[in-house]
């Protein structure tokens, strides 16, 4: 059994494309061409060149010595925080903008929660001279003013999502509606491994550069390609998909997924989808999602806007259901503590999303000679206000 997507777009029983007919031509156009386009030599060349010269790849695999000593195991950090724009999100937007160009699209739309994916999209649109429209929940626009300003500087139009709960899931709905209304000239750059097939697989493939690099880097440092564990935080799950990708079908590599417990899994203010979610349909994908008994999608909560999504990508739903991955949830408080700790021990201020992954060492013990690679998915600049308020800095 493989944990990769099958030819019908499913990971086990999860995935597929549960979309209204109005979206079918757009999604089908992409589905029928994405693999071929990605295989083209000229595409690969351009993609790799931009990742190298523009994004700054390969990102370092850094042995965190003081952090390792503290937890008595070998911890490596995959430094996606050093990517241009400050997070892994740009790996995907570079790939998708090249895809959009090959499909002959001239207008780009995207959704964003915290604004990281919106900034990464606005960035590549500026790079390629393409029109960029970013949907963002009206509430998030207020909470994430600096990223809104960045998008505007980059030439994007930011449109507030005023429907429903006015956060990420509603911004995603609005982007999908825009795509329905503009079926010919527009490409939708989804920001995570969510949405209808082929998005989860396409985004995972663009992010898979993360584990591809780890294989060579670890060989150099440890004399082996495979770590004992790969660890990532999961919002929709794109940085996780990237670090798991080349290890999915290697049972000797343990997979750990870290979700946001918010104020505690059972407090009603949480985003721990694997613990609280049930199988259903969100944004065109069959997966695990937080919902009422009646099937209405509920609003999650996390201190970290990037983990504040009521679903997880279908790849991760399958990793959970099959037991291939270990799921751990981390509260706001524990994440904030871990973020401060990494800053003190290693001189790296992580994004609060990433801080969740760093926090597992307090409770999840590893062997002394285990090699644990954590995806340091983003830097903390965007979260400075939250850190300031939380720690009274």
């Amino acid at each position: 059994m493989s944990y990769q997507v099958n030819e019908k777009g499913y990971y086990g029983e999860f995935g597929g494309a549960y979309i209204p007919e109005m979206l079918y031509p757009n999604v089908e156009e992409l589905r029928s061409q994405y693999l071929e386009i990605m295989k083209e030599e000229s595409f690969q060349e351009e993609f790799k060149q931009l990742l190298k010269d523009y994004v700054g790849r390969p990102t370092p695999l850094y042995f965190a010595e003081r952090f390792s000593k503290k937890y008595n195991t070998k911890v490596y950090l995959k430094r996606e925080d050093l990517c241009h724009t400050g997070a892994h999100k740009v790996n995907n937007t570079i790939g998708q903008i090249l895809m959009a160009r090959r499909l002959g699209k001239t207008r780009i739309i995207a959704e964003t929660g915290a604004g990281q994916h919106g900034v990464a999209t606005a960035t590549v649109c500026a790079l390629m001279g393409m029109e960029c429209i970013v949907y963002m929940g009206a509430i998030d626009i207020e909470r994430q003013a600096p990223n809104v300003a960045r998008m505007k500087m980059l030439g994007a139009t930011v449109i507030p999502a005023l429907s429903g709960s006015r956060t990420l899931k509603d911004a995603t709905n609005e982007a999908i509606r825009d795509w329905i209304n503009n079926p010919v000239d527009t490409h939708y750059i989804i920001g995570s491994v969510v949405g209808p097939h082929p998005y989860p697989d396409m985004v995972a493939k663009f992010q898979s550069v993360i584990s591809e690099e780890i294989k060579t880097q670890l060989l150099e440092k440890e004399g082996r390609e495979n770590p004992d564990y790969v660890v990532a935080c999961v919002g929709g799950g794109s940085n996780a998909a990237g670090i798991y990708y080349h290890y999915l079908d290697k049972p000797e590599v343990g997979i750990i997924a870290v979700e946001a417990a918010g104020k505690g899994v059972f407090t009603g203010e949480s985003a721990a989808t694997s613990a609280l979610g049930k199988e259903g349909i969100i944004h065109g994908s069959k997966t695990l999602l937080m919902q009422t008994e009646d099937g209405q999608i509920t609003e999650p909560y996390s201190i970290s806007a990037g983990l504040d999504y009521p679903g997880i990508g279908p790849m991760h739903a399958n990793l959970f259901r099959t037991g291939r991955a270990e799921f751990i949830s981390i509260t706001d408080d524990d994440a904030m503590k871990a973020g401060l700790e990494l800053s003190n021990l290693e001189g790296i201020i992580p994004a609060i999303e990433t801080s969740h992954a760093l926090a597992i060492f307090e409770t999840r013990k590893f062997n002394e000679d285990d090699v644990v690679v954590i995806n340091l998915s983003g830097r903390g600049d965007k979260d400075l206000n939250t850190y300031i308020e939380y720690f009274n800095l």
Partner: protein
Amino acid sequence: MNRINQKLQEDKKLLSIYFTAGYPNLGDTVSIIQDLEKNGVDMIEIGLPFSDPLADGPTIQESSTKAIRNGMTTHKLFEQLQGIRDTVSIPLLIMGYFNPILQYGVQEFCEKCQEIGIDGLIIPDLPVDVYNEKYKTIFEAHGLNNVFLITPQTSVERINFIDSVSNGFIYMVSSASVTGSSTGFSNDTREYFKRISEMKLKNPQVIGFGISDSESFQQATKFAKGAIIGSAFIKHLTNKGTSKIAEFVKNIR
């Protein structure tokens, strides 16, 4: 024979109305249905509200949000519709998104529909291939017509496929848009209506999205068996309340 199929055989253009169950008030469902029938509406789509209605514009979204806030649920709707066939004889369809139906249980949902006397379902985000593979036999065993959508972008090949698996009518979306967007039809839209009507499909077509008044109703039904009005009716309920339904229907034809 299913009431929808019977109705489609009548020698007239059909006026179908969509409304969101539980809007404007939780308890309005049955009286709205009765009033619509009394005023000569041919068919009704009862909207099962969903928190994230992807294919809908602001009007239907807002009515859905309000309906959910009013306390509408799948269980509640079925409870309200118990006995509806004592007073209402026109075809009734439920239009809703797939997730609430999945949570209720597809089998149980279909059983309940049959028990109540629902004739068909419109589930925009249940794709035709998944339906065909997994759910067709369940729907048909409970006498339910499943209605699929086509749009100006749908290929001829796919239209023929959709026609082959449909057993009532085809829901023809008037333009590339979510509900409630356009006012009036362009030449391109009329061309598309004409093109489809000339395909001589096995299933008659009913046009929806962007039908808001007598003029758009007349134009649409020049090319199709009927037309569906949704957002415009919801707006009417919002502005005039539930007591002026007769006025709305009279203004259409």
